[in-house]
């Protein structure tokens, strides 16, 4: 019977991670359905085993116990990664952009789309004065000023890749690492490290809670 219970525990954890939205923080959206189906399958298999062996005792190997302990920890301790720390340890190589991303009006571009655009064409003057309406977390770099950033994933958090935009932070504003901000303003061109670069000139900066789906494809 205990085997059935273990399968039910794992099935519930897998299914719960989908239902509760926890998976939005861990995996790319295309995998969520697959994870949900496997959770349901584990639950069903567990229920069948429990019904079949209601009165049977079974010796449980210690690896099953230890993985069940981890399972309970997964259930009880939700993931809370430091996005800034993840961004700091990853190279900045974004996935290929969706085809229509660049035809959006500037005010509707996400942060990731802005980064893709600026990487695809090197002349910052082309976006000078464009309105900006983005949200992201504060990425505190070891060598450089804080950026406003997002993480993109192809698979799961293990391969998260950062996309960061330079911001001309207003005097007196101290960006806090990992804090989520909504920024409205416009693009401007300034000199940094003897290069002309596009930076966000904020008009308003609003602290916001972490979005339900903080990872972008």
């Amino acid at each position, binding site marked *: 019977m205990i085997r059935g219970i273990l399968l039910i525990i794992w099935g519930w954890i897998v299914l719960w*991670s989908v239902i509760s939205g926890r998976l939005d923080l861990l995996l790319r959206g295309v995998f969520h359905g697959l994870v949900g189906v496997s959770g349901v399958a584990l639950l069903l298999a567990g229920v069948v085993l429990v019904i079949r062996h209601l009165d049977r005792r079974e010796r449980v190997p210690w690896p099953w116990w230890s*993985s069940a302990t981890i399972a309970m920890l997964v259930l009880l301790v939700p993931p809370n990664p430091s996005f800034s720390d993840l961004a700091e*340890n990853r*190279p900045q190589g974004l996935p290929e952009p969706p085809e229509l991303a660049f035809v959006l009006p500037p005010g509707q571009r996400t942060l990731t789309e802005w980064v893709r655009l600026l990487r695809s064409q090197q002349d910052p003057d082309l976006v000078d004065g464009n309105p900006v309406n983005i949200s992201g977390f504060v990425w505190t770099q070891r060598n450089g000023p804080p950026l406003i950033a997002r993480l993109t994933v192809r698979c799961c958090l*293990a391969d998260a890749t950062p996309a960061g935009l330079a911001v001309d932070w207003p005097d007196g504003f101290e960006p806090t690492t990992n804090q989520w901000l909504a920024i409205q303003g416009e693009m401007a061109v300034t000199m940094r490290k003897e290069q002309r670069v596009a930076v966000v000139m904020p008009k308003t900066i609003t602290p916001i809670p972490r979005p339900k789906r903080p990872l972008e494809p």
Partner: protein
Amino acid sequence: MTPSLEKISTAWAIFQGLLLEAIPFLLLGVVIAGLARWLVPQTAWIQRLPKNPLLAPITGALMGFALPACECGNVPVAKRLLASGAPMGTAFGFLFAAPVLNPIVLASTWAAFPDQPWLLVARPLGAFVIAVLLSLLLVQLPETQLLEHVLLSERRMSQPLSTVGLLERSGGLVGDPIPELTPTQSTRLRASDVLEQSSREFLDLLALLVLGCLIAALVQTWLPRSWLLAVGGAPTGSILALMLLAVVVSVCSSVDAFLALGFAAQVTPGALLAFLLLGPVVDLKLVGLFTVLMRPRAIAITAIAASFGVLIIGQWVNLWQL
């Protein structure tokens, strides 16, 4: 939150991401292994697999097209093949090649690198060569030094007494005699028996997967990836760095091409191919799972030989492409 607590918190999140992404593929592999056990009587097709030292691994490698799963899903299927008495070369050829030689992985490689057709040829070809060479190498070891002891016992029970001595079978000496299987005898199990065996197998493998994901998450959090990519431009250094990255990151083969896309522009072509070839064969997440198949020495031989083979292929590609 202090920096060390932040790192632990990040490692915990990476662990959950890796685990939740891998569980469906592990389950798929266990289900396919269970279905194979249920639908196809062991003796019917296992006995027909070629036993020729070269044909066996080639057959196994090509069988990968039947299982669209990543490396986690292949372990239970390979275990079932070995336990059922399939030629070892076939089982290992399948184990090492199937994570790449399957439709999903080839499609994702093509989707990630549509402008690099050479990669679409080189990846399956390289995986095939590595799998066949590894199989040929491993079968040189005696079964007792190669296979994990529980699996070895199970395998010997499924082999006819004409090939395995009674004393070599650890079971069957006491109690009821074990009926000899003949090629014509149907040994189809009941569905409930398959569920019993598959659930046990899933929980065994899941415990090892949990361990592998924990190790991968910890190493990945404390080993900055920028260190690995710092040598990206050097031909040999970039190959070694990307091989190490593949082992550490432990991302499943069905999506690793998209990850490789992220640093494709910063590394040499040989390094890119090395990343795509080594990860499906050896990574931290797999080390635990391999312990249900092989003894530690055989796992070490696999890791060293695969790394060496991938390094040579990567160097050769760099010479050809650079």
